[in-house]
């Protein structure tokens, strides 16, 4: 399950050592680090080295769901607990019984829900919504966050007692820019993996010179950004140009206005979907279907624009790379309002 913890830096060696020594304990753990550093990978490695391997590994993102929904996801509910609860539903704590529950983005959990989580951690018991019965759970709770929880405590956003209860083991993953020596082994690992997935012949892979350049880059999106760049290199070829673009975008972002969401600078999905703003669950038009549509449109727009850019707006070439028909591409260009750069014909 999942990749191993890859790297040769002393940070990564330390993390591997830590994982080996604590995986059997099942003690509450907090994994911290910027977005894209591999917090989930570390959680999976803890799980696969623990006696809980083979039991459920359940993950929930505390930032992706509105408070009420997160609560019912975590603790489950009885039939009729609230409008729309047409049948009983088991919560994540029940599903993860005997195994691991990864609470991703724990720093985004609301204070009232933090209090309920603290109660579960203290007593090992929880009550599904609309139920009078307390259920026992034996769940290894691993929390992940990109927040500085100490700072959140100082600002009154995170409960100190919950912090200490979770922080029995702490694993911090430094950003990739602080451990560039991990880049060659990461490239090596993912090139092999993607080559297998792509399956084709003549796949271009980054040369030692390109990897050298990659080691100089800052990787604001960390390993996730590195994965995306590698995929792009292997799908589109022209590694040199792609690596040059990384640096060009980096210098653009320094000192300039806050960068808008673009494919080269990964942002969280909730940012991308603007869940705090226009697409907030409070808004009239909110529905899973509508948001999904918007997200898919956005992703398609990014990818098609990128490929068109690469092919110098040669639409039949782009259609081939995208593996869609020429007609579909033309339709999507107009539907998604993708505009060519000045001087190119629409």
């Amino acid at each position: 399950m999942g990749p191993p913890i890859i790297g040769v830096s002393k940070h990564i060696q330390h993390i591997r050592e830590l994982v080996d020594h604590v995986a059997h304990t099942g003690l509450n753990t907090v994994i911290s680090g910027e977005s894209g550093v591999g917090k989930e990978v570390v959680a999976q490695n803890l799980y696969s080295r623990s006696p809980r391997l083979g039991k459920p590994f359940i993950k929930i993102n505390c930032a992706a769901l509105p408070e009420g929904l997160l609560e019912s996801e975590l603790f489950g509910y009885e039939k009729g607990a609230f409008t729309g609860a047409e049948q009983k539903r088991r919560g994540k704590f029940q599903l993860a019984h005997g195994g691991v529950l990864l609470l991703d983005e724990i720093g985004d959990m609301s204070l009232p829900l933090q209090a309920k989580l603290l109660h579960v951690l203290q007593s090992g018991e929880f009550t599904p919504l609309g139920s009078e019965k307390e259920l026992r759970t034996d769940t290894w709770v691993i929390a992940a966050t990109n927040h500085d929880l100490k700072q959140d405590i100082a600002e009154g956003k995170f409960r100190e007692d919950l912090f200490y209860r979770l922080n029995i083991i702490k694993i911090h993953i430094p950003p990739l820019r602080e451990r560039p020596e991990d880049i060659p082994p990461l490239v090596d690992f993912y090139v092999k993996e993607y080559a297998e997935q792509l399956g084709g012949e003549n796949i271009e892979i980054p040369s030692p010179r390109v990897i050298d350049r990659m080691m100089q880059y800052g990787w604001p999106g960390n390993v996730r950004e590195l994965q995306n760049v590698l995929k792009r290199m292997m799908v589109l070829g022209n590694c040199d140009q792609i690596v040059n673009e990384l640096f060009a975008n980096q210098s653009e972002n320094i000192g300039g206005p806050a960068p808008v969401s673009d494919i080269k600078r990964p942002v969280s999905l909730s940012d991308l979907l603007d869940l705090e703003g226009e697409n907030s669950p409070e808004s009239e038009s909110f529905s899973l279907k509508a948001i999904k549509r918007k997200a898919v449109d956005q992703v398609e727009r990014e990818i098609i624009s990128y490929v068109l850019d690469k092919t110098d707006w040669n639409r039949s070439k782009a259609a081939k790379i995208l593996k869609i028909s020429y007609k579909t591409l033309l339709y999507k260009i107009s539907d998604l309002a993708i505009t060519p750069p000045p001087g190119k014909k629409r």
Partner: protein
Amino acid sequence: MATNPRVLIIDDTEEVLSALCKYFDEQGYEVVSADNGLDALKLLDEDIPGFDLVITDLVLPNVSGVAVISIVKKKFPKVPVIAITGWGEHPEALAREAQADLVLEKPFKLPDLEKAARKLIAGGTGR
């Protein structure tokens, strides 16, 4: 005591650690120390003669003192553990839950800690 008791002392504040080590050494203990929880776990795993007592701070990098206590109590249930803690820190309650034999709040007097240590090693409650 027939041989010198072996004590593992864990604290991430250098001055505190060296003061504790020096004092216990002078009192005739064989002292082994660690400035973080992971190194302490490695010592516990690798050390062949084993320890007669563990003294640990609670707030430590990576593996907390609470974790050290839980692990020691699971692997070596007979080894007594003393937790030392800063004033008013939340982990105090956690240390008791993890079955620390004694939780001592800073500041404390070194002779008092040593007296408690001696009692615990002899099989007492440390109080």
